[in-house]
């Protein structure tokens, strides 16, 4: 399990023997992962494995129960909140409920770590809001009320907010849930663009394996309180690994297409199953 595509230094996010969990109870321990500039790193694993807990700890919302998180080499727990916000921004699964805020208002909140005491924006800030919204194709929605949007639009506006914060690293918790397949593909295309063309480091959790396979440069498998394996998509997306990670019946995962097959219904074997 060599870290063939991950450089030894210059990581934007690095964890050293990190232990995460709630109320002193460790959920996942011994985590060593790295996110380098230009890289999409994806956490995969069964529900309840602790993927979101890892993200929350890296984002500084939960205290680490052991080990440490380094952002661009600096210890997260020693970092002032403003410096941390300039280093890393997040997109969460929390349902955002606003009242009388436009999409531009929501995106503009990303400028928080750069604005003054009272939060006034400069023309430069506003220009960055526009640039980000254009990049994520939500500029047309700028004066619409945030609560009136569809789920897909809302996710893109929240992503625009995170990008507008101009972090080095972006942490996204299940950004594709609630989205139909077209928005999923669009969102992940943007993530790849942000990583590969703009040099952001992206750490993301995904449930959809075919998408994870396409978007990720590096995968981290989390199960039963440990990181069971990490590597490139070629190393991770092999039947034995995926079957073990999700406790599938051997043969359920098709490495060639990325499809997950349903087990045969008992006593009613279908012909196309036999062909596969």
């Amino acid at each position, binding site marked *: 399990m060599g870290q063939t595509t991950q450089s030894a230094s210059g990581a934007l996010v690095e964890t050293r023997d990190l232990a995460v969990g709630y109320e002193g109870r460790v959920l996942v321990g011994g985590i060593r992962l790295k996110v380098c500039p230009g890289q999409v790193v994806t956490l995969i694993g069964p529900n309840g494995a602790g993927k979101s807990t890892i993200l929350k700890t890296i984002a500084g919302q939960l205290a680490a129960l052991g080990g440490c998180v380094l952002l661009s080499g600096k210890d997260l727990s020693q970092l002032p*909140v403003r410096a941390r916000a300039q280093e890393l921004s997040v997109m969460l699964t929390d349902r955002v409920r606003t*009242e009388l805020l436009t999409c*531009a208002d929501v995106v503009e909140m990303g400028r*928080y770590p750069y604005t003054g005491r009272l939060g006034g924006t400069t023309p430069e800030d506003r*220009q960055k809001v526009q640039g980000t919204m254009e990049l994520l194709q939500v500029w047309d929605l700028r004066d619409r009320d945030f609560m009136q949007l569809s789920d897909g639009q809302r996710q893109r506006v929240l992503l625009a907010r995170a990008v507008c914060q101009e972090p080095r690293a972006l942490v996204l918790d299940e950004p594709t849930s609630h989205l139909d397949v077209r928005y999923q593909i669009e969102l992940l295309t943007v993530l790849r663009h942000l990583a590969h063309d*703009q040099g952001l480091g992206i750490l993301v959790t995904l449930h959809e394996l075919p998408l994870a396979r396409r978007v990720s440069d590096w995968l981290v498998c989390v199960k039963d309180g440990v990181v069971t394996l990490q590597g490139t998509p070629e190393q991770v997306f092999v039947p034995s690994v995926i079957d073990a990670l999700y406790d599938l019946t051997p043969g359920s995962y098709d490495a060639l297409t990325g499809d997950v097959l349903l087990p045969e219904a008992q006593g009613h074997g279908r012909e196309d199953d036999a062909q596969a």
Partner: protein
Amino acid sequence: MSPRGTVGEARLDSAKDAYGAGRDVRALCVFGALTALLVAALVANLCVGTVSVPLNQIVPILSGKYQGETASQVIWNIRLPRLCAAALLGGALGLSGLLLQTLFANPIAGPYILGISHGAKLAVAVVMILILGDARVMSSWMSLAAAFCGSLAAMAAVLAVSRKVRSASTLVIVGVMIGYVCSAATDVLITFASDANIANLRNVSLGSVSGVNGGQVALMAVVVTAGSVATFLLSKPLGAYQLGEAYAQSMGVNVRSFRLAVIVISSVLASCVTAFAGPISFVGVAVPHVARRLLKTSRPQVVIPAAFLTGSVACLVCDLIARTLFAPVEMSVSTVTAVFGAPIVIWVLLGRRRQVG
């Protein structure tokens, strides 16, 4: 490979008004209208009453002519302190409600509905009746301090519940119940109080700005100004907190100290109201909504001053109605604010339902 500066390099000139167009004009209109209403309400409160003072005498009286005449005495000793109190406390209620609504992420939060005003009221009664007894008269400072402690205690109870329940309406019901308990306890104390104390407690118990004196107004002005400035200084994190605590934290809000600041400031403002005028109903919960609807935004930088002005206007108008409608009999201002405030709360609730469904 820093991404800094790579986003949006085009159109520096056109970006200035690229979004939120017309917002400044709207804000200007709203503030203009609110200021005009405030001036009108202030003048009406000076002129109208059992002793009617003609409009053209107001300026001479205020500049010190006609000293010793009835009209001058009524204005200087009764109406001026009273309208100052109504304006200041109304503004304080508006801001207190705004802070609580943001803190609890709950559109129907307010110092009266969450029982915080009643906690303050109980504490004032306890100090006045049980601790001081008949021996000493309670100073303004003492009732303010007692009310603040009572507010914090009620706030602590509501906060403890808010950690357990997710539902906005359950939290409000618990707040209302805390209010009832505190009111009942206050009534028990009043039953055993001396006549002098009962007279003193009438205001604190029912919610009325009658009978305040100049010294009290001065103290009020200091406390409310401090609380309002502090609220305005919090406008940036208040804005970020609208996206939820987790997002606020990720943007660089120090959540722990922010919450503490909001709790202390909203308690100071609410207790100032209760110490001098008793619990005034529904202004705190309704006023922030009116301000937001008028401005068509919830950006705190504009909503905070607008909520203060709206609260002032609301309390001045309600107090005018309270003392003139059935004159010479006076109602408590809280009765009038309930008539206007409660329907607004119902309207907000119905609007929320529709949005969810």
